[in-house]
């Protein structure tokens, strides 16, 4: 291999990184949307909304990056997955339209604020659920023939995919609650602190249920998790989950502002690592590998400098824009 690296593998990591970035960043702003109906109208809802208003659009760009990157680096997988999971993907896109426009509309039209608040929270919940269902259905495996999807258009629906959908809604809500603990104060912070406790319990239970079910979906998943000697490596994932969970509850108990959010992020990171363990080396389970789905070498090589140079720059200015809006929402102007 030129450059001494395996380009398909490198891009699989890039896509995984984009998905992680998307899940943790849009995860907390979707989570705020999921919690929205449980916040009192007025000051609390408004400052919850404002804590994410300047950043949500950058967060969603990672979803475009995941989609665009898949098309570019793994065109075969992109076509297969999206046509196989047609219904949940379309539902997610429509839900994102609703919640995206609600950000501006609720301020522009106070008389219909209630309507746009419903659009915002319903959109957030449906988008989160649809993303979970998509993930669950992908883990179940996608029927493929002749480079195209060969299943029916309701294959994605199963108890397992619904379980993952519900889990993701719960997990995003945890991210949202811990984000608001970090970004708010007063009654909103206290309320979110209580939510965070319950949601943390829910998320851990959901993660355990999904993790317990996954090895039974396909024999290959069982082998990837439990075969000797890689079990030494894969066992680190649940072990770290236990440690992170411990710190999460400890920090919630001590009413820390930042640690719960960071721990919730770590849980999502570990969840994705677990997903990687189950899937690797497939990109479309059960049959298509990363290398089979990869775009030709010249396509990947063309993108390599772009990724190596631009992704760090993007991370830098994304960090800058978070830094500009740092601190508690609503009180920053006083320093």
């Amino acid at each position, binding site marked *: 291999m030129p450059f001494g690296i395996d380009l398909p593998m490198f891009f699989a990591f890039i896509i995984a990184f984009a998905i992680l970035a998307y899940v943790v960043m849009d995860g907390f702003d979707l989570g705020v949307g999921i919690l929205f109906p449980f916040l009192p109208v007025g000051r609390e809802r*408004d400052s919850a909304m404002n804590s994410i208003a300047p950043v949500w*659009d950058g967060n*969603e760009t990672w*979803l475009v990056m995941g989609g665009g990157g898949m098309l570019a680096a793994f*065109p075969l997988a992109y076509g297969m997955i999206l046509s196989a999971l047609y219904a949940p993907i379309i539902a997610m896109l429509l839900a994102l*339209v609703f919640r995206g426009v609600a950000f501006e509309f609720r301020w522009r039209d106070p008389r219909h604020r209630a309507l746009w608040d419903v659009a915002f929270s319903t959109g957030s919940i449906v988008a989160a659920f649809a993303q979970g269902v998509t993930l669950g259905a992908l883990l179940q495996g996608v029927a493929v023939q002749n480079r195209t999807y060969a299943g029916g258009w309701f294959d994605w629906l199963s108890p397992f995919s619904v379980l993952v959908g519900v889990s993701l809604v719960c997990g995003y809500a945890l991210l949202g609650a811990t984000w608001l603990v970090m970004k708010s104060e007063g009654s909103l912070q206290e309320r979110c602190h209580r939510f965070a406790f319950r949601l943390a319990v829910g998320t851990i239970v959901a993660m355990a249920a999904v993790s317990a079910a996954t090895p039974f979906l396909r024999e290959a998943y069982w082998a990837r998790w439990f075969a000797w000697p890689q079990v030494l490596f894969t066992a680190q994932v649940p072990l770290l989950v236990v440690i992170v969970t411990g710190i999460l509850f400890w920090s919630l108990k001590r009413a820390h502002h930042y640690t719960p959010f960071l721990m919730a992020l770590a849980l999502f990171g570990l969840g994705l690592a677990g997903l990687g363990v189950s899937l690797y080396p497939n990109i479309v389970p059960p049959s298509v590998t990363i290398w089979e789905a990869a775009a030709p070498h010249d396509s990947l090589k063309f993108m390599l400098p772009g990724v190596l140079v631009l992704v760090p720059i993007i991370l830098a200015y994304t960090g800058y824009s978070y830094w500009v809006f740092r601190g508690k929402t609503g009180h920053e102007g006083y320093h």
Partner: protein
Amino acid sequence: MFESFDAVFLARLQFAFTVSFHFIFPSFSIGLASYLAVLEALWLWTGRSVYLDLFKYWLKIFALAFGMGVVSGIVMSYQFGTNWSVFSDKAGPVIGPLMAYEVLTAFFLEAGFLGVMLFGMNRVGKGLHFTATLAVAVGTFFSAFWILSANSWMHTPTGHAINAGGQFVPADWWAIIFNPSFPYRLVHTVFGAYLTTALVVGAVGAWHLLREKGNEGARVMFSMAMGMIAVVAPLQIFAGDQHGLNTLEHQPVKVMAMEGHFKSYPDGAPLVLFGWPDEAAGKNLFAVEIPKASSLILKHSWDAPLKGLDTVDRKEWPPVAVVFWSFRIMVGMGMLMLTLGLFSLLARARKRLYDWPLLHRFALAMGPAGFVAVIAGWVTTEVGRQPYTVYGLLRTVDSASALDAPAVGASLLAFVVVYFFAFGAGTYYILKLMSHPPHRGEEGPRRDQPVRAAGITPAPQVAENIATGKGA
């Protein structure tokens, strides 16, 4: 209810619907981002507060339009896979990386600095804020660059090879990016976006001048918009003509459909002004023609021969009537824009720019003309590429996902309902913002909201607005 439809036709309809709706927003926000950068620069340079007022006035509108562009754009980036999975597999290796560069160079830049541009005026210095505005404006241009390169490659594919799996694989990236129709399409589209924005700004200015001649903000925006139209409209007509000649060279069948030339004309082809192309009969009904004028335009000679659709297998024909008419709508709009530009020059020469109601009414009526022209132009070029997705190489029927008609039909219906509801409301809010006259001490997008320097939450204000029955 969709069983009797053809799934590929429904998928095309869905793509046409979602992309047309989507493109309305960028065609406005590309121009508006640049306009905002110019306004902020003028404010920083001259210190005149009217420029800051106008900046804030248009920034609120930009925030709405940009948000709708983002969410409708996310749909586009997934639509290739959901409905056109075979196309994605085959053409992905070539157009995918171009789109990836669009995301990396443009979308993140826009999204990353949009927050600072919208809400950061009091948090960062003037210089940094202007940098953020510039970054957003430059981002919209980068975005146009990459996506138009990808689109143009589908019209004039070059620089690729075809591998054993039937995929297009890159052979020469330079040839792919700068494919033959790309420079023309880029210039034509960017001018189109500037004109669209100028027409909207001009119409808003005109509306307020009709009500209050002395409004300084309305005067400045009207003058700037008319100046832009007077300069860009003729340039755009020239660029469009050059693009047409380029199309004649690379996609002659599209030009035959645009011109309504069913027959070949060995000694000078007529320019069909109007008529009804009857595809089945292969002729134009009720045609009004100028003899030999088409040859003059396309070949710069009265007697130059031009081939017609009769030289092409019917299986290679695009839908002639659609292409013929959408092209005429676009050209008609262009001519009206030129007229408006010239009228405004006359008014300026007579020092009646702010005091000529006929001009203001004309400018007001022309407000939506840019959108009409842009959509008509895209219909011309995209429908004119049919029956191919990658011109001459990959047929549309061979590009679609293997989906059942009811699945595509149901999602199409869902898109139509959601878009009309969500974007209909957005358009209404934009029009409402535009109906307020620009005034001194204009508020930014978030004066009534809590992310801002004062640290006051908007709840009391919202409550007050509700109590007094006041809208936003």
